Every structure is written in C-alpha cells, then in structure tokens.
C-alpha cells in the first residue's frame, strides 16, 4: 500500500511569546529594538506568539503592531489572550488565535531516594521511605512498621509489619534476612503471619507480587 500523500499529526512546539503590556506602540517598539539589538541573529525570522492579555481596551492598533513586527523580520504565528474584539481583528488580519496551554504546575517526579536506617526498629516505631526504597541494617521488632513506596530490604529479622510499594508500585519487593513477619504487603496485597508460614519454609526470602497474589522466593545465600 502506498504512503498517503499527507498525514495529520499533532505535535507541540516551543514558541516565544511576546507579552505586550502597553498600547503605546512607540514605547513598545523602542524596548523591543533594544532587546533585538542584544541578539539580532536569534530573533531573525523567529516565530512569535503575541500575548495581549494585558490589553483590555479595544482601540489597540493591532494592525500597526503587526506591520512593525514584520518590518523587523519577526514571524507572527498567532495571538493569544486578546479580548473578543481584538481576536476578531486578528482573524481579519489573518492571524491565528492560539490558546495558551496550561502552565504545567506539577514538578517532574522527584528522583527515587533510598532511605537507610542503621538500627533496630523497635515495637511501636514506624519508618516510611517516601518515593523510594528502604534499607534497614537491623531487625524490625514485633509491633513495628516499615513502609516504603519502593522496595524494603531488611538485613536482620522482620518480626513486625512491612509494606512495600505503598504508593501502588507492583514491582516492589520485600527482602528480609529472617521472615517472621506479622504482616507483609506489596501494593496493597497482603499476607498475615499464617499465610507467610504456609508459603515459606526458608528463614530468609524475597516477597514479590506475582500477578494478583504474593509469592516468596528463596534467596541465593
């Protein structure tokens, strides 16, 4: 089958946005010229979106602005943030009306941080490793709780509760030198002590999620 002669695909581009804060074009152009003088090559033929959200009155000389920008070899792609009347004018001038995408407010996910605890976790104590793995050099006592969004490694006996993948990560594991836990849980699937005893004969082991249920793997120690 031959390739179609055209395809329509969505893509996003980064464009410079020129915010116009004043309707005094002479002042605007004076400031723009001084900016352009700093890096003339950079702005040569640069596609620009004009943001008019600061201009609230309708007698703004959009046509004049367009001419002035073109005369400085800037390519106007469209306008945004304009009032309805100005948007209409822009359409008549052959400019596209673009809607500004929402500024992404969520920061990129923080890198996983491993939390290392070099002591025994005593009854009644709780340790939570947010966004990462938890490593414990010591034992986790009866009545203690260790929780991690990632995996949990215990270089000692696990006698209390361990909850890995607390934020829902199904690939998290719990590894303990001695599995005597009250409860183990991965991404919400849990076993009580008796389930654990049924499934494990070894003292040490790795608990992971196999589909919907937990399983114990022995460690190659």
């Amino acid at each position, binding site marked *: 089958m031959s390739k179609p002669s055209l395809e329509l695909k969505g893509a996003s581009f980064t464009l410079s946005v020129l915010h116009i804060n004043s309707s005094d074009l002479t002042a605007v152009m004076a400031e723009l010229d001084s900016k352009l003088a700093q890096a003339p090559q950079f702005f040569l033929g640069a596609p620009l979106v004009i943001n008019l959200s600061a201009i609230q009155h309708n007698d703004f000389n959009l046509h004049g602005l367009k001419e002035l920008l073109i005369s400085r070899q800037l390519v106007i792609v469209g306008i945004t943030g304009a009032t309805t009347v100005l948007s209409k004018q822009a359409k008549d001038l052959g400019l596209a009306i673009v809607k500004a995408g929402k500024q992404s407010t969520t920061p990129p996910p923080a890198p996983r941080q491993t939390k290392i605890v070099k*002591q*025994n976790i*005593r009854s*009644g*104590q709780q340790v939570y490793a947010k966004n990462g793995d938890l490593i414990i050099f010591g034992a986790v*006592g009866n*009545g203690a709780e260790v929780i991690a969004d990632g995996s949990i490694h215990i270089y000692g006996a696990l*006698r209390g509760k361990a909850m890995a993948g607390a934020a829902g990560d199904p690939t998290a594991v719990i590894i303990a030198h001695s599995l005597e836990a009250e409860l183990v849980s991965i991404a919400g699937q849990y076993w009580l002590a008796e389930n654990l005893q049924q499934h494990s004969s070894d003292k040490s082991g790795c608990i992971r999620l196999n589909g919907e249920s937990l399983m114990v793997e022995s460690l190659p120690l």
Partner: protein
Amino acid sequence: MAQIIVVTSGKGGVGKTTSSAAIATGLAMQGRKTVVIDFDIGLRNLDLIMGCERRVVYDFVNVINGEANLNQALIKDKRCEKLFVLPASQTRDKDALTKEGVGRVLDDLAKDFEFIICDSPAGIEQGAMMALYFADIAIVTTNPEVSSVRDSDRILGMLQSKSRRAELNLEPIKEYLLLTRYSPSRVKSGEMLSVDDVKEILAIELLGVIPESQSVLKASNSGVPVIIDQESDAGLAYSDTVARLLGEDVPVRFITEEKKGFLQRIFGS
C-alpha cells in the same frame, strides 16, 4: 559528672523497683554516692522496698514545686551512708512531673552524687517519659515472657527517639538488658524464653540475669533491698549486675539448672 541511670520496662510488675533498690544499694555499698528517685508519683513503692516509708516527710514533687529543698526531701539510708532515697508523692499524679522541674532537680543532684537511679513507673506516659528523658544509661528490666519482651522493645524505641540525648543528637543512651524472674527449669521445659531468645529479640547488651527467688518477696516485705541478702541467688546475681555496671567482667550465673553432678559436688563450682 553524675551518671543518670533509668530502670525501666514498659510493663508493670517485672521488678523495676526491686531492681532499682538493689542496684542503688549495691552501688552505694561499693562506695559510690548514690541517690535513687521514685518516679512513680501516686503509686509510691520504692520507700517500702527500701524500708524508709516511715521517714518520708517531703517528696520529689515538693522539691519540684519549690515547697521543700533537696536536703529536706532526701532520706539517708540507715544501712549504707552513701545511699539516699528521694521518695515519690502519693497524693499527686504524674502530671506533677515537668521537664523543667525534673531537669532542675537532677542538675542539683548531679553536683553531689555519682549515680542517680531513676525508678520508672510502668507504661509509656508522662511519668515513664520523665524518668527516661534525662538518662545516660538505661537498664531495661524484662521478664522472660513475650509480653514483657515486646513492651521492653517499645521502651527501647522510646529511649532512641524521645530522650534528651536523642532530641539533642548526643551519643545515644547506653542500653542494658536486665532479665529478672528467670527460672532455668521452666526455660528447659519450654515455658519461658531463654536468655538467648530475649537477647536475640531485643539485641542489647546483657547486664544481668536475676533468678526467680523466694528471697525477693521476703526482702520486699521486710523493707530490705534483696542485694543485702548475700545468701540468696537473687542477691548474688544483683551483686554481679552492679559489678558489671561498674565495668567488671563477671560471668553470668544462675542461668542453668542447679543439678550438681557427682564431680561438681566433689570439686565445687
């Protein structure tokens, strides 16, 4: 600088007060100037065990509130001149203990004494927290049974997180295990946890093992710290414990059943 030692356990009835009295008396008998403070406000017992209940005029809470000075409240032991008792108040409750008040009293005592023994109440509330807050050394008194071990584990967590040393990021409290009411024959028959079991779960240094003994109750009832009774196993075991606390290396006794074999009987052991 005085060493502040808290005798604590979480669980009640495991022998904190008996141990506090015995260890304080033992330290004083070794020539160390020692004061033992009853933190069990409202359920005062230490004075009974120490045999000084008839001489209590002012108490710990009076001193904290500034109603009496330390010298008025401290009771000098009749048997040992280096030993003093600061009794608890029987009419107040644990909220009378404030961090500032307790800290001030301990600071004053520290100028005069070599060892300050704090006899903690049971539980993990205000009284117990105040008893352990200023400690340098903790003697965690534990019976060889699961509930006591778990409560001790809880208290160890508190020592590591709620004490002054933890809050100020100083060197952590030195934690010792004191296993009391130990009965080797019941361990053998599987009714009781063994020393090794408890050591493995709590993972702290063993300071001493006190065997279950008739002499403890007898001593308590007559108001004589059991360590005075050097005929009894418990008294000897407390003496060993005090020696270890002072840095001596003493082997642990009374943890195996006392059935002497023929050879042992001849050569002694």
